[in-house]
């Protein structure tokens, strides 16, 4: 049986760890935070099932923590990496104490970080308190406090703005894949939980692939208003946020007021991606994420794999599929040198 290092304890890293562990391999799961879970820890309810992220996640963390073949190393970071023939010697800082491990393969599951839209000055994030991001609003809903940060009052209207910083030559060119579905889900949840709030979505194209299209039609049916526009500017006037935009379906320009504006932000590569790539000689895409060379999860470095949002922003289901596929790829590789898994 082989030994595998999994870097990143988000949903993808945990899925790879569990699959490899169930096949009989020894897994070291390294997470830099105190808790496993990654970005999912900030989410309220997940699509398409609407189950609570917290409960969904608990199922995974419980299994990972109690599995005999998995050593969960939280509060830990990778600090040294050496290639030794068909194996790697890695040094990991575990809660301030350095430890060395020998492993046969590595899974990069470093995920994404949400984009900080402060540099999009025209949208006023960090200038107006009632302009928040989609991650902020998930947290607000999770805490049961969907209120205007400026006065703690319940908003009468919430406007979601799509593609902030994405599909944008001046920030990130790529489409971040999950944000449309995330927004549609949140608008739908707001309408279900607070029918009196007016929910609007400003979009250029709604990209809700496959069955997520059902969420989109549910959202339309429940009364979420979809406006095809990319706001030109957002500013505060008389304690309201004002959005100026052209409705590109009618070619009319409008100015509308909103109590809360949610900037829908996508995922960008975590800051340590570049350094990690250089250390392990793994190439990055021009988007800044790890590049998949040998599909579904192999990188251009031998025995190093990448899963989940570490190679491109993904939703949960897509991340889980790739994480499982990587485990299968690794099992095949290790079976050649260490004997087949169970």
């Amino acid at each position, binding site marked *: 049986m082989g030994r595998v290092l999994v870097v990143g304890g988000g949903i993808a890293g945990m899925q790879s760890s569990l699959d490899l562990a169930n096949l009989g391999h020894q897994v070291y799961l390294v997470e830099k935070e105190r808790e496993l879970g990654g970005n999912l820890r900030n989410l309220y309810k997940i699509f398409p099932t609407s189950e609570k992220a917290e409960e969904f996640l608990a199922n995974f963390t419980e299994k990972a923590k109690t599995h005999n073949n998995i050593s969960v190393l939280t509060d830990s970071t990778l600090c040294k990496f050496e290639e030794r023939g068909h194996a790697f010697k890695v040094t990991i800082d575990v809660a301030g104490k350095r430890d060395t491990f020998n492993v046969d393969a590595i899974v990069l599951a470093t995920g994404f970080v949400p984009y900080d839209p402060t540099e999009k000055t*025209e949208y006023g994030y960090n200038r107006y308190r009632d302009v928040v991001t989609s991650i902020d609003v998930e947290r607000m809903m999770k805490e049961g406090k969907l209120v205007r940060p400026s006065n703690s009052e319940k908003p009468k209207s919430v406007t979601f703005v799509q*593609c902030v910083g994405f*599909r944008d030559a001046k920030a990130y060119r790529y489409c971040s894949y999950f944000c449309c579905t995330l927004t549609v889900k949140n608008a739908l949840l707001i309408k279900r939980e607070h029918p009196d709030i007016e929910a609007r979505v400003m979009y250029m194209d709604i990209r809700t692939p496959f069955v997520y299209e059902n969420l989109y039609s549910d959202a339309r049916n429940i009364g979420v208003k979809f406006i095809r*526009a*990319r706001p030109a500017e957002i500013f505060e006037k008389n304690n309201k946020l004002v959005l100026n935009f*052209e409705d590109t379906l009618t070619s009319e*320009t409008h100015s509308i007021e909103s109590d809360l504006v949610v900037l829908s932000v996508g995922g960008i590569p975590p800051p340590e991606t570049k350094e990690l790539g250089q250390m392990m000689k793994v190439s990055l895409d021009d988007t800044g994420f790890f590049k998949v060379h040998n599909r579904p999860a192999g990188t251009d470095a031998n025995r190093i794999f990448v899963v989940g949002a570490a190679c491109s922003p993904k939703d949960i289901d897509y991340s889980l599929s790739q994480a499982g596929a990587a485990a299968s790829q690794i099992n095949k590789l290790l079976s050649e040198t260490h004997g087949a898994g169970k």
Partner: protein
Amino acid sequence: MALVNNCYHCGLCTGICPKRRISKYSPRFKINKFLLENERNVSWECLTCGLCSQYCPQDVNYLDFVRDLRKQEVDEEVIAHKSIFSLICEIMTEYPDAQGVPTDFKGEIDQNSDVAYFPGCLDFFDCFLDVGVDFHEIGQSSIKLLNRIGIKPRILSLKCCGHDALWQGYSATFNALRKWNEEKIKESGIKTLVTSCAECFRTFSKDYELDLEIMHISQILEKNRDKLKIETNGTIVTYHDPCRLGRHMGVYDAPRNVLSKVKGLTLKELDDAREDAQCCGISAWISCNPEAKFLVVEKLEKAIDTNSKTLITACPKCCAHLNCIKNEKPPMKDFNINVEDLTVFLSKLIDRR
């Protein structure tokens, strides 16, 4: 026209367009018509202020698109002052022997200097514009300020830089002016070319092929601001970013740094300062109409709201447009604010000592 193929019709440009606030003009619709129906109607409404391109998520170069469309045909009806300035440019190109602009300025001048100052069309403005501005004084003040920072410039008598011809669609005129000027500049052997006009500065920098340092007067003053030693007793001013200097060339700090070096002066920012500065209303003498005047009035009112005594700008054209409304006879209202070019403002402070 690959410039606009990237457009994905998000409408941000139309949402932010200053012209759209007062008319039905839509940059996105213009692009849509062009891409789907190959409609190539010339756009005379566009101010070419660059606000849309600055924020365009697809890097569509709407300015160059508009400029290319204008090359097809020129409508003299939309050009203000009966096209007189276009005519001057044409005369300059019709007669190859024609000399450059007048350069009758006083001060310490050294015709062998590496640093040259080009006044632009200031003296022509004095001949044909009755807007209450002494344009010659902008050139005179520029020389005085250059002298003050220890530079004895040479004065270069080039022909018009061709900015207006280029943006009005007279591409042949522009090319002829450019060719003549480029040769003249290369021949002169200067190392630095200083202009007091934001349009000349943009045109020499972006539309000419010159291998020398091109500086707006605010930049060379900023570089030597410790030598300026100008004082005033507690005057409040505000500053309007000309689109050619700001968004087109990215020069926002230089004029501000020069002004903040003036002892006793308070600089108050307009609420649309820097990157978000709204156009003064007109560019390249195109479409001077009630819509344009609305923008001029709006700018003046914003400046008055800052409680400033003077609105300073760094382009003679902005100076002309903003003063034009003030000098209408009879004026539409009493605008209680002075509008001055940066150089004239500074130079007057020196004289007052």
